[in-house]
């Protein structure tokens, strides 16, 4: 069974219950389904299925396509696996919200996760209804507006619920109606213009839901301030939901910073952070290969003075005046050079944009982080020597067994064993080549006696398999959690009683010990899931 579908099912079951999970699972396994199809496959009642679909669409996990006017088609539904898997990251997102906007941010995020999407009026009502927080109303509104301005939450438009592929196909259809006979070139032109029109619709959403504050044009001082602040108000009628991409960008930046700190030193991490601060407003997508470029001057402006004064970089002393402390400019340039030289490839110079422009090189970083993950895994599972063999093969390409043995400095018997182990686990593969080639052979005959074999590492394939493995592990953890809860069902029933909820001391000592044990177990499972989620982030999202 598809591991991704299984994991999505577990996630949904934990939050929304078994019915929604069953419906989502069937749609994920079978692609698009109509309502009668879902009835047939899940054997639930139509009413339950309709309610489940409403829940899924409300949370942005499912899309639908309705029939075009006049054609008698049924509405098809499909579930988005990516959106479902993002929900795994919810605790991390809430923690980021706490760091930036404290408890208020956490509350807003939680509301958005529970309801899927909300208007700012909905937040207002919730705050009003909650007695402990009534007086902080304007803080909530301010936080919401700030989050919307920084694109951490983003507007939802009706088009979002309808699947993107169908929109694209519709646009293509519309365009092709203009032509009667279509040549190959025209078909290409149609496709291109359809794609552009869909993206134009879609791409306008960056500032959707926000409108400029109505300023009084009479008072000029006020006007100046408003232009400077450039904060926009939230439109009351628009629904907002969490923008996972923005949070992912944040996670990625933090990850790169930690990597820099680990490899070089703390100040290098600060420099990387300054790069990100500088380009903060221009980073839009996670898939960009470079960060917005910056010069050492920009970095120097952003970094606080005490970081520079730490003096943990040793630079070439000034030839004229050996006692002079290096200037800010020199220190920063020194660090940038260090980051550039480092084999992880943090920074690269962008000469095409001008002199001394540097940017963080995400392309190389992505590869390096994935590789580091892979090597760590192999080292833990199969030992240092095996990991060494793997690294040799990755760096050198395709090698013969004797070459591997020489480079790895291991006895031949060991290399053969370890290569076989790696092959068994799917980390290396063999390529068979004919021995007697002077001219192009006419047959693809590769008898073992007449051919030589080379070992190599299929990196992309390994990363994909690894991702599926991680999905399986997280789904297993979730299953384990369900099992632990099932085994303790009597205890849970006791906890759900009304009198126990009010006074926990009604339970005996043994019961209380069991409760702490259960909490510990659940915590451990959840934390393992979170650590695996970080692996998923590196493998899939960065």
């Amino acid at each position, binding site marked *: 069974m598809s591991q991704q579908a299984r994991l999505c099912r577990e996630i949904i079951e934990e*939050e*929304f219950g078994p019915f929604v999970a069953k419906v989502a699972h069937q749609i994920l396994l079978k692609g698009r389904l109509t309502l009668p199809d879902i009835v047939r496959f899940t054997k639930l009642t139509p009413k339950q299925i309709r309610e489940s679909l*409403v829940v899924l669409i*409300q949370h942005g996990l499912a899309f639908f396509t309705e029939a075009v006017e006049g054609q008698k088609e049924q509405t098809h539904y499909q579930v988005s696996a990516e959106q479902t898997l993002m929900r795994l990251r*919810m*605790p991390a997102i809430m*923690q980021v919200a706490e760091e930036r906007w404290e408890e208020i941010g956490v509350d807003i995020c*939680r509301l958005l996760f529970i309801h899927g999407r909300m208007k700012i009026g909905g937040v207002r009502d919730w705050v009003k209804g909650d007695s402990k927080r009534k007086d902080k109303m304007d803080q909530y509104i301010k936080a919401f507006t700030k989050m919307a301005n920084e694109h951490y939450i983003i507007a939802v438009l009706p088009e*979002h619920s309808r699947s993107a592929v169908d929109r694209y196909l519709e646009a293509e259809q519309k365009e092709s109606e203009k032509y009667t006979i279509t040549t190959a070139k025209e078909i290409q032109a149609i496709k291109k213009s359809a794609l552009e029109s869909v993206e134009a619709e879609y791409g306008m959403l960056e500032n959707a839901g926000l409108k400029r504050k109505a300023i009084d044009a009479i008072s000029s001082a006020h006007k100046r301030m408003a232009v400077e602040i450039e904060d926009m108000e939230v439109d009351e009628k628009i629904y907002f939901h969490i923008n996972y991409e923005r949070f992912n960008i944040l996670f990625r930046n933090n990850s790169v910073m930690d990597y820099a700190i680990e490899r070089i030193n703390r100040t290098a991490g600060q420099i990387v952070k300054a790069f990100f601060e500088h380009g903060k407003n221009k980073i839009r997508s996670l898939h960009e290969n470079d960060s917005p470029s910056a010069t050492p001057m920009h970095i120097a402006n952003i970094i606080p003075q005490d970081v520079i004064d730490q003096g943990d970089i040793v630079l070439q002393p000034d030839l004229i005046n050996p006692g002079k402390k290096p200037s800010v400019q020199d220190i920063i340039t020194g660090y940038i050079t260090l980051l550039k030289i480092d084999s992880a490839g943090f920074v690269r110079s962008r000469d095409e944009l001008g002199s001394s422009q540097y940017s963080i090189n995400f392309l190389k970083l992505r590869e390096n982080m994935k590789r580091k993950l892979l090597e760590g895994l192999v080292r833990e599972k199969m030992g240092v020597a095996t990991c060494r063999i793997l690294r040799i093969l990755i760096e050198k390409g395709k090698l013969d067994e004797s070459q591997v043995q020489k480079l790895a400095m291991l006895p031949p018997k060991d290399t053969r064993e370890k290569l076989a182990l790696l092959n068994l686990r799917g980390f290396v593969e063999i390529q068979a080549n004919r021995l007697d080639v002077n001219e192009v052979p006419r047959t693809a005959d590769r008898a073992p006696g007449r051919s030589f074999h080379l070992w190599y590492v299929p990196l992309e394939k390994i990363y994909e398999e690894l991702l599926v493995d991680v999905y399986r592990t997280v789904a297993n953890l979730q299953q384990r959690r369900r099992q*632990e809860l099932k085994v303790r069902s009597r205890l849970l029933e006791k906890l759900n009683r009304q009198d126990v909820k009010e006074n926990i001391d009604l339970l005996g000592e043994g019961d209380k010990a069991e409760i702490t044990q259960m909490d510990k177990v659940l915590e451990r499972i959840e934390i393992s899931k979170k650590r695996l989620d970080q692996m998923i982030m590196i493998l899939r999202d960065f």
Partner: protein
Amino acid sequence: MSRGGRGGFGGGRGGPGGANSGAMQLVSFDMLKDLSSGGLFNVNTALFPEMDVPIPRKPNSSETSQWKFKEDFLKQVHESAYHLVPPPPKPDIERYSDKYKKATVRRKTLREIDTDFDFFPEELQSVIDSSKIKKKPKVQKVDETFNLDEIMNAEGEGKDGEDEEGKEEGKDGEAGSDIEFDEEGEEEELVDDNDYAQNYFDNGEDEDFDDDDGDGGAGDYY
């Protein structure tokens, strides 16, 4: 004897909670160590080799706070309208603990959530929109196939009758979506089948009767 044995079973399962796995329920770990063979079962087979399972690192502070957030969220979402639960079981015998199990917080239903109806397709709008409750067309108890009175009335009242019937049909049509209609149609067909069986299937007894009568009538001539 057997009663004691069964009591032992039940006690083993329910008592210590999650500490025991399925196979080891009857035997505690202390007993296992005492037995000289190293356990009742041979745990070291080819499929399950003895492994040195690594222990994960202890959680740091940010991880524990994330766990708290998740716990909080799960509690709230289980109480929300979005967590669909199976319908409550039918009331059984009355139990003492029932009075403590009442759920005092009433869940919101899906009709009460605040959302834009434009986000949802036609067929799902009835779930969220309380104004669009589908009225199931009343199951007609009257025999559908042959109702002389209706036809007589329809002809007699002329325009008025037609208008009334037209309105009723219109309401039925609007109340259902395409799929509802299909379901209703299927049900009607099934119902029709039964009527067909009732109305047109003769066992053959009636025929004999008729024949006899015919013969009797014809016989009179003889």
